C-alpha cells in the first residue's frame, strides 16, 4: 500500500527574468514500510522534491504543480491549518545541519517539550517526561541531556537529538535530508543502524535523501535516482544498483571509487556538465552526456517504462546487461 503518492509533481523556482524547473513531473509511489533512498548530484532536485511535497518552500519564489497524496489526502490542496496537523505528527523531517536547528539559549528539554505543547496540549508533564526519556534511550542518549544546552553536546549527539525530536509524535514518514552527511562514518553508521532497528517497532517509513550511494545500498530497500529535476530510475536497491537500466545510474555508480578487494576499482568521470535548467530543453536531460544517446533522446521526452511493477526507468535506450555493460 502506498503511503505517499506523488503525481505529476513539479516545482519551479521563480527568478527575476527566468524560471528554473527544479523538479519536473515526478511520479513516485512510496510504500508503507519500504525505506526509500533518493540520490542525485547537487541540483538534481532531490531535496526540492520533498521540500515541495511538504510545502516548506517560499510560495512567493517558487511554484508547485501536481499532487501529493498522503493517506488519501492531497497535501498540496490542504489549507495551512490542515497541513500543520500532518507536519511533524505524521511526516517529520531531519535536516543536515542539526547544530543550527537548536537555539543556544534553551535546554534540549525545552525543545522536546515544545512539540507536545503544540500538538498534544492535553498531555501531562509526567507523561511527557516519560516519553522524552524513552525517546532519548531509543537514540542512545542519556536522560541528562534534557538539562543540557546545545553547545554542550557534540555534533553527533545533536543529530541524534533532532532525530529523537522528529520521532516524538510517532510519525508515519521520516524524511532525512542529508541528515547524516556531516557526521563521521562511524557515527553515521551508528545512527542509521539505530533507526533501522526501531523502524519496524514504530511502523515508520523512512525517506533518505543523500548523494552517497553506499548509504542507500546499505540502509534502504528502494532507490530513486534523480537527474536535472527528473526521476531517472526507481526500484529495489538490489535491482537498480546491480543491473541499472538507465545509463545515468550506471555512470553514477562508476564514478564512485569502490572498495573492491584488489583495490583497482577505477573511477570514470561523466563527460560534460549538467544542463542549464533555466533554459527549456526537449527530450532527456542526460542526452548530452550519455553514451547511448540517439536523436530520439534529444527530441522526445522518455516516458516511464516498467521492468516489473516495482522497477521502472525513463530511457529510450535502456541498458541490457546492466552494470557489466561497458
Amino acid at each position, binding site marked *: 500500500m502506498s503511503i505517499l503518492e506523488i503525481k505529476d509533481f513539479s516545482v519551479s523556482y521563480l527568478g527575476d527574468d527566468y524560471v528554473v524547473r527544479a523538479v519536473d513531473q515526478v511520479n513516485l509511489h512510496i510504500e508503507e514500510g519500504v525505506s526509500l533512498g533518493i540520490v542525485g548530484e547537487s541540483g538534481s532536485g532531490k531535496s526540492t522534491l520533498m521540500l515541495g511535497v511538504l510545502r516548506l518552500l517560499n510560495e512567493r519564489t517558487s511554484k508547485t504543480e501536481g499532487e501529493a497524496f498522503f493517506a488519501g489526502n492531497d497535501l498540496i490542496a490542504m489549507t495551512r491549518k490542515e497541513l500543520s496537523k500532518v507536519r511533524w505528527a505524521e511526516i517529520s523531517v531531519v535536516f543536515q545541519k542539526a547544530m543550527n536547528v537548536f537555539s543556544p539559549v534553551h535546554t534540549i528539554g525545552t525543545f522536546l517539550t515544545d512539540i507536545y505543547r503544540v500538538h498534544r496540549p492535553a498531555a501531562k508533564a509526567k507523561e511527557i517526561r516519560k516519553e522524552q526519556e524513552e525517546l532519548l534511550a531509543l537514540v542512545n542518549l542519556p536522560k541528562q541531556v534534557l538539562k543540557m544546552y546545545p553547545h554542550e553536546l557534540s555534533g553527533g549527539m545533536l543529530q541524534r537529538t533532532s532525530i529523537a525530536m522528529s520521532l516524538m509524535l510517532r510519525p508515519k514518514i521520516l524524511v532525512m535530508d542529508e541528515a547524516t552527511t556531516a557526521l563521521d562514518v562511524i557515527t*553515521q553508521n551508528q545512527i542509521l543502524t539505530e533507526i533501522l532497528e526501531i523502524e519496524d517497532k514504530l511502523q515508520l517509513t523512512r525517506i533518505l535523501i543523500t548523494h552517497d550511494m553506499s*548509504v542507500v545500498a546499505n540502509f534502504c530497500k528502494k532507490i530513486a535516482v534523480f537527474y536535472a529535476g527528473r526521476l531517472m530510475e526507481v526500484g529495489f536497491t538490489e535491482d537498480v544498483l546491480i543491473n541499472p537500466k538507465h545509463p545515468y545510474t550506471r555512470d553514477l555508480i562508476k564514478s564512485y571509487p569502490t572498495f573492491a578487494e584488489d583495490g583497482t*576499482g577505477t*573511477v570514470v568521470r561523466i563527460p560534460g556538465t549538467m544542463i542549464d535548467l533555466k533554459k527549456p530543453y526537449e527530450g532527456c536531460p542526460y542526452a548530452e552526456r550519455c553514451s547511448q544517446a540517439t536523436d530520439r533522446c534529444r527530441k522526445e521526452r522518455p516516458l516511464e517504462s516498467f521492468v516489473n511493477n516495482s522497477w521502472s526507468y525513463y530511457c529510450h535506450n535502456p541498458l541490457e546487461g546492466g552494470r557489466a555493460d561497458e
Partner: protein
Amino acid sequence: MSEKDIKSSVQEMINRQTKKADQIIQADQTILQVTSLKKYYRQKNKRNVLVRSLDGVSFELGRGECLGIIGESGCGKSTLGRVLIGLEDATAGEILLDYEDIKEVKKRNRKELRRKAQMVFQNPFDTFDNRIRIGDILSSALKLHNIGSTAKIRKQMVLDSLKKVGLLPEEDYYKRYPNELSGGQLQRISILRSMLLKPEFIVADEPVSMLDVSVRAEVIHMLDDMAKKENTAVVFISHDIATTRYIADRIAVMYLGRIMEIGKANEVITNPLHPYTKALISNCGDADPRNKMKPLQVKGEPPSPMNIPEGCVFSDRCPYATQRCRTEEQTLHDFKENGHLVRCRFAMQHKENG
C-alpha cells in the same frame, strides 16, 4: 576479457604500483621530514586549557610521492596540512623541507617558501575573488615570483598550462570570471594555480569533497597526472577512504592528533593492523548492495582534544584495550619490518585472532 585475464592484469598492476612505491622509498629522495610535530591551541576564555590538535606527528615524504591522510573530523588532519606549508607555526617539532627547516625559510623569505610549498583548498568557490578574471589570477602568481619577463610571455605561459590540463578553449577560460565556472572547473584551476610555480610539494585539503561525484574523478586524475609529471609530492587530506586509496601511494591514519598507522595504501586498507583503522574501514560502505558492509562497532565518540585520555589515545573506545593500554603510551612500531607502522602494542596479536 575473461575473468582470469582481468585478475592477472590486476595483479600486474598491483605489482607495478608496489614496485614503484618501493623505488620511491629506496631512492632516498626525501623532500619532507617531519619530526614530532606539535600544535597546541589555547581557548579564548579558558587560557589554561590546551587544545592538543597535533601531538607528535612524524613522517617522511619522498619526492613525487603521494601521502594520503585519513581520519574523522577533529583528528587534526587539516591542522597538519596548514602547519606543513607554514600557514601556522608549529608549537614544537621540526619540518625539514629539502633538508632545511621551514621556519628558517619562512624567516628569510616567505615567497621562497611559497615557491616550494603550495596548497589546494577544500572549497573552490571561496578560493577565488569573483571580480578577477581566471587569466589574471593565474598570471599574477607568475608576476609575483618574477617568472616571465613581460606580460605577454606570462599570458602565453598561462595559456599553455590551461591547454596542457585540458581546459579548452584556453583563451575562453583565460577571459572568464570565477563565478562563470562550475565547482569542478574551479577546483582544476585551483590545482593548476598551485602547480604553476612547480612547487616541491603541495597539500590538498579535501580537494574533492565539495564536488559532485560525477566530476570528482576528473579532478583526482588531473592532480595525479600533474604531480607525477612534475615529480611533485602531494599530501592528500581526506575523510573519504576510497578516494584516498585511489590516489595515494602511502596512507596515514590519524586519530586525536597522532598517526595511528602508516604504510603503503593497499597494505593499510586491505590489511589494517590498528583496531581503529579496522573500525574506520569496516564502516565505509560500497555502492554495490552485494557487498553489504559489516561495520565493527566502536563505543562512543572521539574524546575532545582538550581532554586526551592517558595511555593509548584510543584505549577508551577500543574493544581490545587492556589495563596496560590505559596507562602506557604506545609508539609507532614496524612489526612486519616492511614500512607498515602501527601504534598498537597488540596489533599482531589481534591480527592472529582475527
